[in-house]
């Protein structure tokens, strides 16, 4: 249901707050207007504009899976003016949410394939949406590997869900921290995500790789995937660019002729290679 005034956000109430890592929080949001909530639907990979009245809007993904009805979740790090204002709120407060915007992960095309999720730092939220979506349809996919790394143990987000994924027999979870970021009782890997990926020597055959992380991690992860024979159209990632409107009008997020907010944020490596170096 598209709103007549495309700039008017849904009014959302924060129902739960979870501290994920220093300055990183997850909010569960419910629609203040019941009827809007029931009609609201989105798909994995889409994002929205979250706003605090008086401070402005900020762009980040919808972190909860579309298969979970009645609420949406978002995870953000306190960096700019709006996220700082968001971080000051607590359960019961109100925020604005505009969306869903952008394209989606083509989950139907992945039926019967192995899934390899590679995430770094604060980029697990967009991945978590598609991970839970796939886990809720687990029987459709073959083996299911998640490689997630962060700077230190404390920086790992969704710690309780990582435990949950670890206990599941049908999910192979590998967590790592950058060298020096480990604690004494850390049992996971130690090393940067690309090096650990190299150690895991992933099989490319019938496998889809989904990669999200800071540009530096992306830069060193793609060559390793290519080394193990992953084809460009089987590697998915999301692009980040400055956004204001989210629906292809404010002219800010384009990379060459492509709008990241309309033709993205989900791109395959094949598409990425055609884009000019402007992101």
């Amino acid at each position: 249901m598209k709103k007549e005034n495309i700039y008017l956000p849904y009014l959302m109430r924060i129902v739960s707050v979870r501290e994920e890592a220093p300055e990183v929080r997850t909010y569960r949001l419910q629609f203040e207007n019941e009827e809007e909530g029931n009609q609201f639907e989105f798909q994995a990979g889409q994002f929205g504009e979250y706003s605090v009245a008086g401070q402005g809007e900020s762009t980040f993904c919808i972190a909860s899976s579309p298969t979970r009805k009645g609420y949406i979740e978002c995870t953000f790090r306190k960096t700019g003016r709006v996220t700082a204002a968001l971080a000051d709120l607590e359960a019961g407060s109100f925020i604005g949410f505009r969306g869903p915007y952008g394209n989606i992960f083509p989950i139907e095309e992945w039926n019967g394939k192995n899934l390899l999720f590679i995430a770094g730092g604060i980029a697990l939220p967009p991945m978590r949406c598609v991970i839970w979506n796939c886990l809720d349809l687990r029987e459709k996919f073959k083996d299911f590997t998640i490689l997630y790394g962060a700077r230190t143990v404390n920086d790992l987000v969704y710690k309780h869900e990582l435990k949950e994924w670890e206990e599941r027999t049908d999910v192979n979870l590998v967590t790592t921290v950058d060298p020096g970021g480990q604690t004494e009782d850390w049992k996971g890997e130690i090393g940067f995500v690309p090096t650990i990926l190299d150690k895991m020597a992933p099989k490319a055959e019938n496998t889809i790789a989904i990669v999200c992380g800071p540009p530096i991690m992306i830069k060193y992860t793609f060559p390793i995937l290519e080394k193990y024979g992953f084809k460009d159209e089987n590697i998915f990632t999301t692009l980040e660019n400055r956004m204001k409107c989210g629906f292809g009008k404010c002219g800010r997020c384009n990379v060459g002729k492509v709008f990241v907010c309309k033709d993205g944020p989900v791109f395959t490596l094949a598409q990425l290679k055609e884009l000019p170096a402007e992101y």
Partner: protein
Amino acid sequence: MDNLIKKAKELLENNLVQVVIGYEKGNTQKSRPVFIFKAENADKLIYDESCHYNLASYITRQEMRHTGKMAVVANIHALKAMLVLANEHQFIEGNVIALAVDGSSDVTELKTFSEIEEYIASHPVELKEKEKVLLEKIKALSKEERWEFWQNELARCFKCYACRAACPMCYCHQCTVDCNKPQWITVAPHQLGNYEWQMMRAMHLAGRCVDCGACAEACPLDIPINMLTYYLSESIESNFGFKTGTSATKLYVLSDYKLEDKENFIR
């Protein structure tokens, strides 16, 4: 003009500078800034009375940072702006060579700050006649009339920031208006936003503006914003005897103080 071209070729051929910033024949305007990287292109260089854009605004540009040494065709205002930039440690002495031009055919090469200071001392400059007339007219207005004058002028502004872009003194990588924690000056181009923007701009240029008028010339709506900074330069000179752009070493007026600064309004 030909010895300007000769000088530019000499500097470029002997690799004394990597770029010469000067003026070339314009398309819409009679002349426009040009960047000469190779000696054979130096023939484009011209200098006549239409060349008044202040080239010192290019010294602090991002693209110039890794270009190396540069030579700048400098009218008197560009030289004064270079001294203020030098005073604010924006370039190392000798990295920017001034090719001082004063409308006559000769070109003086100035490398050190003291050479520039002497040249400026021997070439006094005044506001243009029409600028003086407008400034006197505004000063003669009553307080109420002045408020109305600036409300009518500044309400039209649409915050394109051409005034900031053309000013040699506005080189901050992120200007106050671009910071949003806190959003000190609003982004919105309504009357209040424009009024606060020009007030802050003028105050940040107090004692730094060399009266070159580049801001008013760059303004697409011809808003006479240079009147604000001219009036401040005038009052700073009378209050503190501080002439902007005359010394590379003397402390800038608002970062210095004297025990005997006289004022008549503090009770």
